[in-house]
């Protein structure tokens, strides 16, 4: 349990091992390798240091990892910003508004109260006892704040910082006659300060004067990428020892992190971001039309999709393409009723827990596109939407953008006004797909959505709509399909899906869209991903140990807007 009582964190400041320096000297262009052979990263990479705001999920994970899972941030937090399809990118663009900071402040005070305000909890986290509980004790306060600060800031506090925060604690303790009250104020102030709320790249220098990311910044990048949370004790130790400035050091840590159970938490966060599962935060359905869609279903549907992905890609080290065709998933009792599936007796006797379920081989249920987590999120509250679903397939899973509709189009003129009651969605969309100015975009979106019409607004399978048979046939980039299962096969074959994962994962890891200089690396990474059997761990390792991910070159005061260089 990675709680505050971290041993051996008494040092402050940066310590560079001699060995680390020596290796650093060997670094330079061409020093980083992945699977051997000349690397595509030999070009100079000009990536500025950045600051990213903690996402809501990161905040929760950080608090849980540092203070224990029983400590929960209360209240609402400022919504994450989604930019260029990722919250991870939005985190690099957004700031904190006044009302947002109010919320962070309330959350911080609540957490500090939970951690230090109750005797039993306090005992677990305090490394010392104050001389008196009714007066200041700078030594004890300082000891606590040093440890807490290191974990919260993901780096040791500077001596000035430590002194300032200790003073906060002391002054408050004196004024209120309450040591722990004072310490709470210092802790909560730490938790609304910049180095906590933002993951900030700090730069130091290599021996040749070239700038590089400092050890702790590397540690943060690695842990937020792979685990969506703070570095653990071992990673911090490696940072302090300078190991993260060596290729071997980084690879060693990355391999360890890839085997850690925390990888699941990290990958859940990634897929949640990529597939926009946060839509479920505000998703509502009409209760009369879809009574099956209750709050538990909304919550569990998200979980189902994540479990399916993590099981396939992490636990079983599977082929990414299978996410479109896998028959196996995880359900619980309520979800099973939403899908109209009986729960096997053993699972039922086990209670309301999750059980593995395999759809029959001839079933149209096929991969994540036919799950509630996808079709329900991309539908209207009272009915389906082939266009929303098709657009989501293009944008979220193939990384292809669909232009906005043109201004000034009057759809009601296009529709056949003599037949206002269209029976199926295909009929309703017919005009969109035949009028030239609309068809251009609708043709690339609607066919996939129309195949998914076999699943209603809450992913219930159906063959008719308003009495008419649903036609689920279509084509995706030249590959024909007859139904949703065949759509899954078509997605599997489509190169864009794998390329999209590589791009998204890379963008997610750094919080920005890649620039032109990174194109060769990404092309290379994709190639190796394919050769390696489309396995996620290999790709994660490739990115996390790459020069692109680990280096930085400050571009002071420049505001370069980097062009989108997603590979195709």
């Amino acid at each position, binding site marked *: 349990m990675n709680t505050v009582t971290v041993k051996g964190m008494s040092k402050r400041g940066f310590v560079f091992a001699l060995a680390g320096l020596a290796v650093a000297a060997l670094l330079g262009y061409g020093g980083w390798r992945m699977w051997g052979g000349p690397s595509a990263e030999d070009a100079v990479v000009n990536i500025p240091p950045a600051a990213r705001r903690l996402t809501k999920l990161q905040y929760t994970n950080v608090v849980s990892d540092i203070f224990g899972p029983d400590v929960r941030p209360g209240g609402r937090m400022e919504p994450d910003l989604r930019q260029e399809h990722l919250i991870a990118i939005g985190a690099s663009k957004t*700031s904190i508004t006044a009302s947002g*900071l109010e919320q962070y402040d309330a959350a911080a005070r609540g957490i500090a109260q939970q951690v230090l305000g109750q005797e039993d909890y306090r005992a677990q986290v305090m490394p010392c006892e104050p001389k008196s509980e009714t007066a200041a004790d700078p030594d004890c306060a300082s000891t606590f704040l040093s440890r807490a600060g290191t974990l919260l800031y993901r780096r040791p506090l500077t001596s000035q910082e430590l002194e300032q*925060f200790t003073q906060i604690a002391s002054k408050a303790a004196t004024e209120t006659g309450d040591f722990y009250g004072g310490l709470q104020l210092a802790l909560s102030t730490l938790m609304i300060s910049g180095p906590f709320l933002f993951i900030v790249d700090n730069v130091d220098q290599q021996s040749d004067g070239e700038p590089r990311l400092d050890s702790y910044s590397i540690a943060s990048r690695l842990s937020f990428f792979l685990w969506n949370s703070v570095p653990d004790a071992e990673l911090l130790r490696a940072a302090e020892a300078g190991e993260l400035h060596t290729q071997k050091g980084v690879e060693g840590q990355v391999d360890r992190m890839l085997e850690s159970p925390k990888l699941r938490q990290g990958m859940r966060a990634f897929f949640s971001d990529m597939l926009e599962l946060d839509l479920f935060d505000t998703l509502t359905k009409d209760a009369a039309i879809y009574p099956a869609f209750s709050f538990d279903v909304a919550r569990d549907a998200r979980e189902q999709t994540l479990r399916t992905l993590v099981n396939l890609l992490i636990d079983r080290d599977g082929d990414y393409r299978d996410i479109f065709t896998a028959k196996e998933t995880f359900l619980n009792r309520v979800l099973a009723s939403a899908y109209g599936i009986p729960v096997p007796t053993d699972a039922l006797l086990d209670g309301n827990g999750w059980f593995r379920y395999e759809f029959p081989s001839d079933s149209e249920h096929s991969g994540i596109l036919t799950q509630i987590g996808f079709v329900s999120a991309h539908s209207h509250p009272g009915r389906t939407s082939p266009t929303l679903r098709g657009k989501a397939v293009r944008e979220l899973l193939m990384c292809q953008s669909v232009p906005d509709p043109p201004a000034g189009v009057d759809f009601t003129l296009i529709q056949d006004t003599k037949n206002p009651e269209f029976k199926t969605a295909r009929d309703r969309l017919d005009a969109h797909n035949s009028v030239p100015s609309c068809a251009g975009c609708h043709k690339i979106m609607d066919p996939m959505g129309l195949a998914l019409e076999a699943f209603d607004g809450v992913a219930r399978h159906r063959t008719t709509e308003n009495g008419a048979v649903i036609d689920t046939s279509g084509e995706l980039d030249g590959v024909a399909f007859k139904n949703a299962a065949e759509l899954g096969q078509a997605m599997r074959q489509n190169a864009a899906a794998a390329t999209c994962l590589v791009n998204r994962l890379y963008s997610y890891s750094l919080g920005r869209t890649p620039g032109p200089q990174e194109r060769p690396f990404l092309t290379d990474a994709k190639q190796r991903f394919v050769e390696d059997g489309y396995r996620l761990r290999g790709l994660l390792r490739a990115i996390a140990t790459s020069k692109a991910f680990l280096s930085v070159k400050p571009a002071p005061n420049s505001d370069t807007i980097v062009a989108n260089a997603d590979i195709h």
Partner: protein
Amino acid sequence: MSVTNRLATRRRFLQGMLQGTAITVGLPFLECFLNGNGTALAATGKELPVCFGTWFWGCGLNPGRWEPKTVGANYDIHDELEPLAAFRDRMNVFSGLRLFADGKPFNPHGSGAIAVMTGDVPSAIGTSNYLPSLDNLIADRVGAGRRFRSLEMTATGDPKDCYSYRGGRVVNSAEPSPVAMYERLFGAGFVDPNAADFKPDTKVMLRHSALSAVTEQRQSLMRDLGASDKRRLDEYLTSVRQLEQQLAVQLEKPAPMAACTMPPKITNAKSDGLELESVKTNNQLFAKLAAHALACGQTQVFNVVFTNAISGLRKAGEPSTHHLLTHEESVDEKLGYQKKATWFLGEVISSLAVFLKELDSIREVDGTLLDRTLVYASSEGGLARTHSLENIPVFTIGSANGRVKTGLHVPCSGDSITRVGLTIQQAMGLPVAKWGTDSNETSRPIREIMV
């Protein structure tokens, strides 16, 4: 920045008082703590603070069914504006206003919403930087001395439904829960301006003083960052200073405000997204909260989103939402408009009336709270069916303590909607000569309503 200087003065002043003794006499009320307009103190005969608010709804109104037929005073209210009849003489209606897209890639609904609030049609939604919105420009001017610089609320249940832009890519988020808003406004941190005695809370003083440790990290925080990241972190630090300000306000005995009363506590938290009754209920609760917040001097600027630009407003049990209906419902041959879609518009404008009524129900020295407020009510487009940027409905309600004339219909055929925003800013005393970008840039305020 003048705000920083003022706060620095206050902080030094307050730090000198921190000796743990209870202070029963209020801190001296210094002029420098007031905002530029010179406010508060009805007791001394000075005017009560001027307030500004926005009320936004999605999917416009049907052209031809709301624009008054007569010009100037005593204009006719009909059809889609019918629910606002009681406010006719205290509101201004501007017809014929539009937005110019200038060939920029146009995000239906989205582009209009941003432009209506910022005067700028963004060149690419999602990647461009936004200009500060009207409410932020005004809050910069009047919000400094208040506990809250501005209050954002949404009746839709989604905190992202907010069109208050700080600039860059920083967007304020809206409070979706009236219960939480009540707590925020009138819970622990509320200092009643009419309370007989006042004792600054030691803990608040300590929290206020602790924030200097945060602001002093500025340099080290930004050391290695580029210009745009520096700006973002400066925005964060501005928010820290706003928190300092908020705490400072709590430490000062506020000037009494005769009309200030606490609203009834809100405990019902049920919300059903964009289901119509849920949205209307939230609107009413927020109206009450906003009214009391203004009357008690907690803020002078508010933003309400009734429905967002894409208006997924729905009636329980019906498969089609308001927005879907605007695109799919046939125009009724006899009526000449889409019947079901237009029904929603009636609900929207009635809800605006409900909101205004709450502001109006607070009686103050020379009228009601509504009289010293200026509400900017607008939508992101005209005819939703065609995503039209013409005939965008815009009203102002309230006179901001006589800073604008009211009761007028002003036809502004073909002009950009930014003329209204420019006029409002000038009326509120901002030293601006023009507003808006590209073809939406204007330097012509609407003289008809200027005093």
